[in-house]
């Protein structure tokens, strides 16, 4: 099918058409998963009956009509925990990725455009950040500064900006050599003009894929930290549910793990898979066409 997109009446239909055309079957499935998880997290209050932090039934209730994912050792509804936990995970993921994306783009543009000492300094910094082990430093900061969710985002972003920065830098270097940039400069275009009109649109496709990937990585990193007991205790995330479940004595010898441990495990895996699939599809599209249409 190669219908021109403007044959469609509504903007919505056009978007749907373009999406279906740009992504593989798995990619579309992945988008549905991401949209579903985000909606569930956004509308958490509407789709849960029980509170996510107070007991609402007998401990260790297996999945039933009242608690359709069961309850944990304190009788807290697991479905509510998963939905509200999704909020934390997505907030950390998107927060980190956007912060790192903006910082990385700025650093990359500065390195690529100005060159010289600026470039050397920024590239040296990315070298250092790549070698430094991120989890131990995260733990160090978490242990000393307290496991606040914003601290976690900040430190994760501190470790994540290098990837977008490197991509943006090499793209900017290649754009800089194009004749239209030289023409624009000879017509008196300033840095601001070139940045907004040429660099940003040029790096946007690659940058967005990098940001999507970082979202997935940040969600995993937060889950890992929370699993170690360094998550924000006030905003229960999927990793923290895992932490509680696996530290429950004798969980292996009881049937509780089937609903208590498996649900956060499946939730993390599903979301991370979905994000990776979307990033991969977009990457393929950029590699074949050069732009996202």
């Amino acid at each position, binding site marked *: 099918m190669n219908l021109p997109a403007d044959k469609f009446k509504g903007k919505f239909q056009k978007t749907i058409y373009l999406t279906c055309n740009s992504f593989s079957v798995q990619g579309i499935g992945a988008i549905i998963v991401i949209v579903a998880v985000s909606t569930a997290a956004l509308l958490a209050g509407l789709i849960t009956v029980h509170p996510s932090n107070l007991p609402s039934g007998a401990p260790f209730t297996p999945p039933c009509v009242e608690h359709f994912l069961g309850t944990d050792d304190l009788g807290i509804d697991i479905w509510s925990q998963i939905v509200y936990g999704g909020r934390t995970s997505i907030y950390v993921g998107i927060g980190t990725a956007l912060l790192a994306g903006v910082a990385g783009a700025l650093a990359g543009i500065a390195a690529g455009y100005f060159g010289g000492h600026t470039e050397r300094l920024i590239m040296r910094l990315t070298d250092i950040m790549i070698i430094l*082990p991120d989890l*131990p430093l995260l*733990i160090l900061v978490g242990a000393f500064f307290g496991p606040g969710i914003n601290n976690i985002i900040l430190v994760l972003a501190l470790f994540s900006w290098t990837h977008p920065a490197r991509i943006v830098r090499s793209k900017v270097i290649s754009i800089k050599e194009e004749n239209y940039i030289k023409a624009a400069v000879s017509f008196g275009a300033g840095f601001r003009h070139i940045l907004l009109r040429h660099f940003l649109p040029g790096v946007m496709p690659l940058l967005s894929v990098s940001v999507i990937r970082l979202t997935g990585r940040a969600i995993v990193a937060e889950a890992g930290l929370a699993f170690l*007991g360094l998550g924000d205790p006030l905003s229960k995330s999927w990793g923290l549910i895992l932490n509680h479940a696996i530290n429950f004595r004798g969980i*292996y010898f009881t049937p509780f793990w089937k609903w208590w*441990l498996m649900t956060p495990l499946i939730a993390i*895996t599903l979301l991370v898979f979905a994000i990776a699939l979307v990033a991969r599809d977009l990457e393929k599209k950029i590699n074949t066409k050069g732009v996202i249409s």
Partner: protein
Amino acid sequence: MKPAGYLITLSVVLILNFFIPRLMPGDPFTFLSSDPDGVTIVYTPEQIEKFKGYYGMDKPLTEQFISYFSNLVSGDIGYSIYYNDDVIDVIASRALWTISLIIISLSLAGIAGIITGAISAWFRDHLIDRLLYSFMILFSEIPAFITAIILLFAGGAWLGWFPLSGGATPFRGYTSGWDKISDIAMHAVLPVTALVFARLGEFYLLARSSMITVLSKDYIRTAKGKGLLKRRIIFIHALKNAAPPVVTRIFISLGTVFGGAILVENVFRYPGAGFLLREAVLVRDYPLIQGLFLFVAVSVLIMNFTADMLYGKFDPRVRVS
């Protein structure tokens, strides 16, 4: 990176390690444990004074830094409050577990990645390549500690093939050296598998793509023209040139693997540095946390540096540039 780069990185590590406890908001010693399973510790005023004296916080910052640095040079990285022992000794008693876990799983993942990558490249676009490719892509996205939990429940609890936790059976009198080795090996199977799975996809993808590039080169066509066996072409001619990128990646990923090992050790309660780190966090043993951070960062730096030095010997192309 040049040696100077490593020196700069090392200084960054040391400076971070010095400043993080001192930049901490509020009072470090009244910070309560936030972990629900943790031991809540409230220090008495005398203890707080003692710790402040320990950190030398009553002296000016420059003086603190000088004494911190001179202590480091003499090998004194602090005194563990909880274990009542020098931090360096506490870490040394656990380090071997973690380091062997990492070395074994990285080598296995590297070898498996290169072999599967070579198979995939040779059968490019056949069914076997497609199956391997989609399987690996999926697997490369699952973080090590999730795989570890799944393995723990499948291999340890459900099938009962492997021990659930620990690095060796406690209080077991070994009848022979072999008995001891096999006991330790059985405990290591699941953690190693989890770490291998976490890295395998990445190495496979890299090996596959570099193999595909190499296989299109003229000397491979010559080898085919000479009528050499497929096996020989892949494993003798192509592999030699396709392996270096994977080896480099193995060393670059050391920092990440250390992170993965910390989490995996905690899933299996494996008695390495990662499990120690969590214990230290639970009891808020700050000198120990700092010492462990220093240990991991310096080990990663040393291993990367060694790799950089060795790499020039293996690949003459690097030496020239």
